[in-house]
Structure formats: C-alpha cells, structure tokens
C-alpha cells in the first residue's frame, strides 16, 4: 500500500467501473481490533496467507485466481452484518466469521442468499444436522464433540470411570460459553460425575471469586470455554491456587500461545483440545515461508506463522479451498458459484492422501461430510503446553466423541429450529 498507488486506485474507481474478473472470491471477516483482536489477528493472517500461497504457487484454484475480500468485524455482530451485506455481492463463496454470535446472525440470512457458512469448531452446534441446516457446515468438530472428548480424556486419566468425581466448567458467560453445558449435563448423568458451572463475565479480567470457589470445592477436573483475555487470566489464577495443570483442559479456543504465555512457567502442563496439530513441522509451512512470507506478501508481519491460531486460520482456508476443488470436480467448471460451493462442502472428504498432497499429512483428523452430516466425525486430540520449550504437543491420538449422547441433543435442537422456521427435512 503506497500512497501513490492509493491515489491512482481511488481515481480509477471514481472514473471506471471495475471489470468483472473471473476469480474465486473468499471473504475474510476478520477482527484485528477490539477486545478479541489478539486472537483474531493470527487466525486472519493464517486464513489470508493460505489463499495468497495458492495464488503465488499454483496460480489459484483450478486455474482461477483467488481474491480475498477483507472486512473488519471487531467481533461485533452489527459490524459483522454490515460486512456480510457488503461482501456477499462480490460473489463470495463461503463465510467463516470466527464468531459464534455472527454465525447465528448469518444462518438465516445466508440460507436466503444461498451462500454456505463454514463454522469450524464454533457457531451453532446443531448446524451439523444437514437435514435441517442446508447451508451450514461445522466440520471437523463441534462444541458438543469437544465437551464429550474432554470428558473422555478425563475419564482416561482417572482410570476409566468418572463416578463420584467433580468437574467444574469455567465458561465465558455468553452464547459461546454456554454451548457445552447441555452436553456436559447429559454426560454427567451418564458417567455419574458432579458438574459445577462457573460463569465468567466478558471480558474476564476479574475471576477471583470463581477461583476461590474452585479452591474450596477442589474439583478433580476443570474444563474451560474461554476466549480472549479470560483464558490467560484463568490459567494464571489456576496456577496461583496451584491447581494441577494437567487436570485443566480448555476447549480448542482456549489453547493458543496467547493464552499460556502471559502466565509464564506457571502454565506448564496445561491442556487443551485441538482439531489440528500444533507446530510448523509440515511441508505446507515451507511453501508458506518461501512463497508468501519471505516475499513480503504475508497478511501480518510473519511473527505468527506456526502458532496455533495461525494454523487454525490456515486450516479453515484449507477446508474451504478443498471444498472448492471438490465442487469444481463435481460440476466440471472452474468458476464455481456459492451453490456449487455448497455441494463441494457437502461432499468434502479429507483423507490422508489428500492431506499429504497439500503438505499437511497427519495435521488434522480425516473426515467425510455427507448430506445428513455437516460436522464430520467429531474428532479432536488433546495437546499439552510445555512452558520450558514453549511449544504445544499432542499427547493423545484423535478421539471420537460419544455420539450416543450428542446425536439426540443435536436432533432435538435442530428439530426445534426446523419447527420455528418451517423447514422441511432434506436428504430423505
């Protein structure tokens, strides 16, 4: 962005109607400002850099160049709506807003406009039910999968049974944080553990009461559904009361470097769920550095490459582009429309071979979306923080969630939505 160019482009847009180019448009509704900006930045960097990589290395997707339309939401729903409306006319293929609140806004809107939403690991959990939510996808896993997998890990740690144990859920007191409660309640009945709920208000800087309560009640495990500053404060407070860190498990949004670094050494041993592998030990990162970062084309200053949230953003972009490739294959055209993109998402299969071809072998779980199932198999692994080395590492394989608990909950929730909005079930 130099100013001469700026002035020229300003003049150009004033006098010329920009020609319609044959290109694939991926909107990036990012938040690089506001209270959740520190987490939004690496995600957006990873998301945008991957598209740049494809353009630089492969010349786009199937011969079509990719254009990323950026819009700043500041994690604010009203701005999110403005961004959606202003970018949808550009031929946007799929929306990934990285905000549960904005996703809820967009679900009815995007269905009316026939543009798919991919909310990987956030958003409306029952969007997994493709029979009701035709335009919503949330593979590779949902919050409810996460709750189930965290419980499973806790169960493994206590020798196969949680009977009589106490689990505390520390959660962001918003729609996002409340998501796992219903599942955990169902699980606590099934596995006979005691569940206590500890809400933390936005933004979450003051958590003394919650942690004093934890200190008194001595739960065996703590799960956390946090975002932003709440994560780092919680980890700090847990360390302060000398809670055993290996029994403290965060959701995948509570497991980035931003969350553990402020607590320093005290965060050693903290665990979180992960929907993809940590670290930058994958061939795709070599390409990323070679074609994007070293050429100075990165969306950020390059310092985020390889961090958890950067990888998360890149993974989101990978799933979107793989779906676009699938759509190109199904329809036999390279210039796909949002409707074709939806078909691509619905038939997306992430197999080991495919991931190896992209340069991310073993990076994320394999899954296959179907007409009924828009959420994949619901698998995640557990990663642990090593404060001395400053790295996350996997301590388990990818595990699947307990479908017998989650399926009925998803059916009930999506049935309610279908009834409220007169939606007929598809895929029959």
């Amino acid at each position, binding site marked *: 962005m130099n100013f001469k160019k700026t002035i020229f482009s300003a003049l150009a*847009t004033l006098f010329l109607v920009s020609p319609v180019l044959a290109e694939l448009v991926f909107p990036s509704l990012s938040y690089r400002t506001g209270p959740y900006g520190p987490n939004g930045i690496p995600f957006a960097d990873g998301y945008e850099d991957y598209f740049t990589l494809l353009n630089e290395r492969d010349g786009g997707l199937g011969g079509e160049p990719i254009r990323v339309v950026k819009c*700043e939401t500041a994690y604010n729903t009203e701005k999110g709506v*403005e961004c959606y409306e202003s970018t949808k006319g550009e031929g946007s293929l799929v929306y990934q807003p990285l905000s549960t609140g904005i996703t809820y806004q967009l679900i*009815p809107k995007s269905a*009316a406009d026939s543009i798919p939403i991919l909310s990987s690991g956030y958003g409306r959990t*029952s969007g997994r039910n493709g029979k009701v939510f035709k335009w919503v996808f949330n593979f590779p896993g949902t919050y409810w999968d996460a709750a189930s997998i965290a419980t499973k890990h806790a169960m493994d740690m206590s020798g196969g049974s949680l009977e009589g144990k106490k689990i505390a859920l520390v959660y962001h*007191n*918003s729609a996002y944080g409340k998501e796992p409660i219903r599942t955990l309640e169902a699980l606590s009945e099934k596995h006979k553990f005691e569940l206590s709920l500890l809400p933390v208000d936005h933004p979450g800087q003051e958590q003394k009461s919650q942690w004093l309560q934890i200190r008194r009640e001595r739960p065996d495990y703590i799960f956390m559904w946090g975002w932003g500053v709440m994560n780092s404060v919680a980890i700090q407070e847990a360390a302060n009361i000398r809670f055993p860190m290996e029994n403290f498990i965060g959701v995948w949004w509570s497991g980035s470097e931003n969350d553990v670094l402020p607590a320093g050494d005290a965060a050693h041993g903290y665990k979180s769920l992960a929907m993809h592998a940590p670290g930058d030990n994958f061939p795709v990162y070599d390409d990323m550095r070679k074609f994007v970062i070293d050429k100075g084309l990165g969306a950020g200053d390059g310092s985020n490459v390889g961090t958890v949230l950067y990888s998360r953003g890149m993974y989101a972009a990978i799933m979107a582009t793989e779906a676009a490739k699938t759509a190109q294959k199904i329809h036999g055209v390279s210039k796909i429309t949002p409707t074709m993109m939806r078909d691509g998402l619905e038939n997306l299969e992430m197999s080991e071979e495919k991931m190896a071809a992209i340069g991310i072998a073993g990076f994320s779980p394999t899954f296959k979306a179907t007409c009924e199932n828009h959420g994949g198999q619901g698998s995640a692994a557990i990663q642990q923080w090593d404060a001395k080395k400053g790295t996350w590492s996997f301590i388990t394989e990818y595990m699947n969630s307990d479908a017998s608990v989650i399926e009925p909950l998803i059916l009930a*929730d999506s049935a309610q939505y279908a009834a409220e909005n007169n939606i007929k079930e598809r895929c029959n």
Partner: protein
Amino acid sequence: MLYREVGEFKTSYAQDSQTFPIRFDRYRYYFVIIVGLLFIPFVINDYWANAVFLPFLIYAIAALGLNILTGYCGQVSLGTGGFMAVGAYASYKLMTAFPDLNIFFVIILSGFVTALVGTLFGLPSLRIKGFYLAVATLAAQFFLIWLFNKVGWFYNYSATGMITSPSRSVGSFFITGSESTPAAKYLFCFLFVFLLAWVARNLTRGKIGRSWMAIRDMDIAAEIIGVNPLIAKLSAFAISSFYVGVAGALFFSVYLGAVEPTEAFSIQKSFIVLFMVIIGGLGSIFGSFAGAAFMVLMPVALKNLLVLQFGWSVDIAAHFEFIIIGGLIIFFLIVEPHGLAQLWNLLKQKLRIWPFPY
C-alpha cells in the same frame, strides 16, 4: 432567497404554531417523507437496508427516547442497552407465546413492557441526580443483562441463551425471518420512526414536555411553580423507555434476527445512544436524527472510503476510524457544544438572510 418567512401570512393559531413555520422547511419535510415512502423502498437493496437504513432508523428511535429523558427532562441515563434488551426479550416472548399476534402490536406491547420496567428503575431519580444518577442507571443495565442471560424462561430454554426471531408478516409481507425483503423491513421501521417522532414532537411542546423542561432547568424551582417532580420524572422515564423498548424490539426482530444479550445490548449500546443524543443536540428532535446518522453512517462511510477507495488494509483503517471519530467528536464539541442541531440552526439563520446579510 427561498428560505424566509417573508410573505407567509398566518391566519390562525394552528398555523402559527406549526412545527415548520417556514414554507421551504415544510416542503423539505414533505420531500423527505415522500422520498422515504415512495422512492427508497423501490431502490433499496440488502446492503443499504441492513448496513445503513435499518440501524439508522432504529437508533434514531432509541436516540429520540433517550433525548426525551436526557435532553428534555435532564436525567442522564446509561441504562439504554438494558432497556433495549427488555424490548427485545419482551418481543421474543410475545412472538413465541402468541404466534398469531401481529408483529406491529408485538412491537408496541414490547414498548409498554419496557415503559413499566423503565419506570421502576426511574424511581431512584427522585433522590439521585447528575452523574450519580447516570452511574446508578448502570445498575439497571448490568442487572437486566444478567437476568436475561441467566433465567432460562426469557430465552425459552434454548441451549445457548441466544434468541432467534421467528418469521412474522404484515399481510403477505414478511417483516422478520429469512423471507423478509429489505423494502418491507425498511417501511416497517420507517412507519415507527415517523409515528414516534411525530408523537415526540407534540409531547415535548405540550404541557408534559414543558414540565420536563422545567425540571431539567432547575428542579427545585419547577417544584415551587407547581410541577410535580414525581410525575414529571417518572413520566419521562416511562415514555423514554417506551421508545427505547420499541427500538430494542425492532433491533432484535427486524434488524439482527438473532441476539445474545451480553453482546448486542452491552454497556457499549448505552454509551453509543448517549453519544448520539449529545452529538446530535440535547433537547432536539432533529438532533436525535442527526446524532444517529453521525454514529451509524460515519463508521460505514469511513470504512468504505478508507478500505474500498483508498485500499488501506482493514486493520489500519479500523484504527483510523476510531481516531477520526474521536477527533470529530472533540472537534464538533469545540466548534459547537450544543450539537449538530445547533449547527443546523445557525445555518438556517444564515440562510434566512442570505444573500443580503445586512
């Protein structure tokens, strides 16, 4: 030249006390109404409706409401976000409990519910004044949001506490839900804005409006000349909350369609509506509109200018948005502390004697 009262002869009291005594003003007003009713609905698209007109109209209602309380009655309130949430949740409960009730009445009833709650939280105003009252109304803000977030009944025990507005229509036109058209939503809100602004204008120049202004200027003096502070203050709280409640109901059901209380109706909402009122002009109907326009359109316009025209990266543009808006607020206050409405009046004064100022 065009804008002057010369040659207009008023022959009745009603003519003399009309809102727009100058012919040019009157025509301009008719022009705005006609454009708003007959032109915009035919050209409006999703972007203009959802990014510009709906937020502008809805915030204008909220600003009108807060202006009644703060601008006319002098009671500073920071509970607007909480009261908007009351309107939103009341409309949600009414819509789901009585599916056959017309959306128009749902919105009106939500306004009444909010008026009731607002009156209740207005009670401390009888003892507490100034900034103390402003901070005291924050109690309403935080308590109400907590309540809506906590008690399952308010959100029909949905898994996340998020409320989603079901589809409702007036006649065959869908106003809420995914099938609604931008024109229908726009006209629905326009109707409310028109009605409520008309009511506000007439309330504020009637007996009750004068009693509010008496309280604002000096409450003890007002009491001595026979204004009942209990009735004046509580009526201001009730009517203001009615407006804010209607705005909240529209905000949820027509504009956003799905909200969670902690984000959509946070303390930030209260501040933004207060900014609108102060920047627009305290105690001015026009000011409410001008303030709403400034706070809603300015960020959108800046974003479009900086990002789309100048090609700046979105985050730098977002930072500059804050810097520019903050700078403009200070600039306007220094130039004219009584808000955009006062600037507008000065302009009109100049226009009256233009082009021969002497």
